[in-house]
């Protein structure tokens, strides 16, 4: 069992590492002309391991962190990640019969959903992000999500331990 006092420390460490890797490494690797999203992968992993509660918390925190280093409207990443994190948590918890590939599918779907949601909400607040760019962004985000979600789940187990309401373990039983 993870020492509970270590959880905030480890969570902070993971969040900062994800941010640094995203801006200095992942952002430079283009897939179909778009960038993958490591921050979103962490949010998805949080939702899958801890349900909607953890998903929304990580979504908000990582979103605010990401927004601090971007030039995009402040708070938009926080809002979209929180919504995606919550949804992933609900979907992950609701799945009754699952195989080991479900997290991969969910992560890919979450990536595509994030691309569409961000573009839509951006346009809603008056930033004319082109909808034509959504397919490429959705693809890049889905691919990184699918590839990285399994290692990300392990990281989340390292942070929170297996003894918290561990939905994945219950799903796989």
């Amino acid at each position: 069992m993870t020492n509970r006092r270590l959880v905030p420390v480890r969570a902070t460490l993971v969040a900062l590492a994800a941010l640094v890797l995203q801006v200095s490494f992942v952002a430079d690797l283009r897939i179909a002309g778009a960038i993958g999203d490591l921050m979103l992968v962490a949010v998805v992993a949080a939702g899958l391991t801890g349900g909607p509660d953890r998903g929304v918390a990580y979504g908000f925190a990582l979103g605010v962190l990401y927004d601090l280093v971007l030039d995009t409207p402040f708070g938009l990443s926080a809002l979209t990640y929180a919504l995606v994190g919550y949804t992933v948590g609900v979907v992950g918890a609701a799945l009754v019969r699952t195989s080991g590939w479900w997290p991969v599918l969910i992560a890919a779907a979450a990536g595509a959903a994030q691309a569409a949601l961000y573009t839509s909400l951006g346009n809603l607040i008056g930033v004319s992000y082109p909808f034509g760019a959504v397919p490429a962004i959705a693809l890049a985000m889905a691919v990184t999500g699918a590839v990285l979600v399994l290692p990300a789940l392990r990281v989340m187990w390292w942070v929170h331990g297996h003894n918290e309401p561990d939905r994945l373990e219950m799903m796989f039983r």
Partner: protein
Amino acid sequence: MAISPPTGSRTRTIVLVVASITLVVVGLRDVAVVRSLRESAADVVSPVEGAVSAVTSPFRNAWHGITDYEELKEENDRLEAELAESEAAGIGQSDAEQQLADLSASLDLPFAGDVAKVTARVVSGPRSNFSHAIEIDKGTDDGVVEGMPVVTGGGLVGRITQATGSTARVELVTDPEFRVGVRVAGAGDLGTARGRGQDDPLVVDSAMSPRAEVAPDTGVVTSGVDRSAFPPGIPVGTVAETRQGSGGLALELVVEPLVDVDQLSYVTVLLWLPG
């Protein structure tokens, strides 16, 4: 078995979503707190980013070698063809940049001739899919402040939107929020160019009649009229096509930027502020 969300989850979700919406609303108003938080974050992140970039560069180079191979090969072929064409027709004859420089000179619009400038290295490209900004390694210590134009030898790159001691952020011409007053070279008509996202050309809303003729490859330069955010005569791009604007009252120009903002290594900041 299905698992129902734990009690308290819904409350926390609502609180955090409302908090995010509040942040968006506050952020839209460009408040000082958000601005200074972002500046502090830039100061902290930039050095770490540089270090991690240096360590991971072999991997990134390998990745680019794999994913960009076709593109590089095409570019190489194209450049070879262009070089041959250029040599045949006299160097620079077909070069749009040269044409623009000539046009600017003929209009007596010096391209930032007597403005002091600072050359800066591009530290990082856009950090997310929705960001159209790059970071450079010069900041207020070198006299770079918010609002200054950024160019390369080819033309307009963008504008400084945030500057701290040793770094600054450049909003690129392709940013959907970017606006610049332009003049169509030759005709002299004025308009406003706006970005439309990465890899997409700019669009110029002009006041020209929908029946006006603008030849393809006509140069477009910054107008510098009145209280423009840019000095006059900086080459912006060349006209790719013309079409009727929304409403059908004016001509809309599709303008291909001269500078490929995806391929920048060094840029020049003009130490110039709107008067």
